[in-house]
């Protein structure tokens, strides 16, 4: 197969860029721990999830100075808890599941972007540095009230 000289040059630059790109992305992921949202833990049957730990007591729990775990249950069409308040600089470990269909837990303006699936626990960590009222919304279609499904995280100043 005869590949013209200019095409070899063109492909060489392209493939070189691609390898560099993948190397940087992979380095960020595996050396710096910057992976997308995930979570390998599982729950009991989704409809019973609110009867067994940890989702029998959804809410915010302080685990250290400026560090919290937010245990969240999604349902049609809301979150439990609906609202939480943390101080600025709080590092929040999200731990979310659904007791019915697939939902999303998304906070516009941040990198908090999680798929919340029945039977699974999705985990992500985010530090809220800027005070304000953060909107939490569902970004996976879950039924006729999908666009009404929301919550709030209030981040208070020093």
């Amino acid at each position, binding site marked *: 197969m005869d590949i013209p000289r200019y095409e070899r040059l063109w*492909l060489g630059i392209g493939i070189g860029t691609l390898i560099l790109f993948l190397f940087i992305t992979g380095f960020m992921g595996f050396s710096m721990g910057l992976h997308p949202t995930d979570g390998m833990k*599982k729950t009991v049957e989704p409809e019973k999830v609110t009867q067994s730990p940890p989702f029998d007591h959804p809410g915010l729990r302080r685990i250290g100075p400026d560090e919290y775990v937010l245990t969240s249950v999604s349902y049609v069409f809301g979150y439990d808890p609906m609202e939480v308040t943390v101080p600025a600089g709080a590092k929040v470990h999200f731990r979310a599941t659904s007791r019915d*269909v697939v939902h999303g837990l998304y906070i516009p303006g941040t990198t908090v972007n999680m798929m919340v*699936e029945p039977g*699974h626990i999705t985990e992500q960590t985010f530090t809220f540095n800027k005070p304000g009222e953060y909107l939490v919304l569902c970004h996976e279609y879950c039924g006729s009230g999908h666009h009404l499904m929301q919550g709030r995280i209030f981040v208070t100043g020093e």
Partner: protein
Amino acid sequence: MAKTANETGETLAKHRYDERDRRLILAHVGVSVTALLIGAVAGLLQVVERAGWIRLPGGINYYQMLTLHGVLLALVFTTFFIFGYLYAGLARTLDGALVSASRKWAWIGYGMMTFGTLLAAAHILTHEATVLYTFYPPLQAAPGFYIGLALLVVGSWLASAVVIINYMQWRRRNKGESSPLFAYMGLVTVILWLHASLYVAIEVVVQLIPWSLGWVDRVNVALSRTLFWWFGHALVYFWLLPAYIYWYVNIPQIIGGKIFSSSLPRLTFLLLLLFSIPVGFHHQLSDPGIESFWKFLQVTLTMAVVVPTLMTAFAILATFEMAGRDKGAKGLFGWVKKLPWKDVRFFTPFMAMVIFIAGGAGGVIMASYQLNQLVHNTWFITGHFHMTLASTVGLTYFAALYWMIPILRHRKLTPGINRLGIIQTVIWTIGMLLMSVTMHVVGLMGAPRRSSFSTYGGHEIVSSWMPYLQLISVGGILLFVAILLAVYLFIHLWFLAPKTDRPADFPIGVVSEKASQPPRILERWSVWVGLSVVLSIIAYAVPLADMLLNPAPGALPLRPW
């Protein structure tokens, strides 16, 4: 048997479609255009509702329209067009007509696909299947919706078999020869489709139909999403490959040039086959239940499609430049002026290519392992696939219909229609820039996709989206006008354009005399199908085994609409 035109550089002899092929192809085109029109109406209703301009009347629901829009445009418009176009190109390049015995199967496939479409559409319209076109369980539609989709897929398998039969029969009649480029590319398209659609068929037939009939209580959610996207990403390449066929094979003839290589386009298609299927996890980067390692591996495989994409960009531009220089163009860019800008058969797919550059860049962002976190399930995604699918693929299909319909109806593509087709493309491009670019921007600002109008309790970040929503609606209305114009042109070409005894020819480019014979390995299918399967196994075996052997508790059905 004479050597094929593709090999010798001769133009194909004047061709006239067999009456039976003509009817078969037109039947596919008819369903495709009907789906386009209805899907566009659903799109219009959605886009003006989302901006808060109207409330949908008569109990129509935003999500119902979204389901209809997705199913009709992404699955029906595309699939029927693709098989109509492939049959037309095969009949043209494989000795002038489809194999007689294969036509019966083509009609049975057509019947199954049409019946499946009607069944699924009826359930959407009666509000029994408001699950969007991705139908993620445990949202549960009525069984008829899933059965309709299964018939659509199985019907498309028969259609794929017709493509394979025609290819194999030709190879048998022409021992030792490389197949014509169109047939080769059509074959790769259906191999990709058969491999990928197997997974969605397993999801629908094994998981969802028994569950929707109440035979089993629970559904494995992670497994269903994985099977869907194993198919779902290859689906977009199933739409794109026929557009590439147009660019590689039809356009050189339209612009009076030649295909500069017979080998590289084949290699491009093989690479697209290999790297479009084992990559579905990049749609699930934010999902729980999949180890990061496997997500990253599939990101790597996803990005490998950069290689055949760059090869295509090179080949297309090289063909343009060579055509211009053959016509006496001077200087570095003189050839640009020699291109037939006023010919809708060239101008429309050219705009499709230009938009694909932006669409492709957005795609790289989305599939980037970390950056996806900023855009996942926002309007950025919707903006992306309205550039790539709706514009790159859609405009190329429109362009093909502008010449296919008159050829098959023995009519003329008049200068007046040609001009209106160019105007259609201009309106489309302006509407798409307004809509899709704005969707990208407002997606980065946090606006979610697939959501009905909502102020989210008057939150300030939502207020900041509102001006953009108005622009998106204006763009959406322009796109609707463009589709109405396109459909008017299709109807005009079908029934009203002047009749002729000598319709134009289906344009098939010839390969440059300087190009060498393609290596035989490119046509050894056991190798390529085998590699495709092996890549799928490498990418999926371990995470899939984990989902099957160590599953999360299943979910019960719900119908929250």
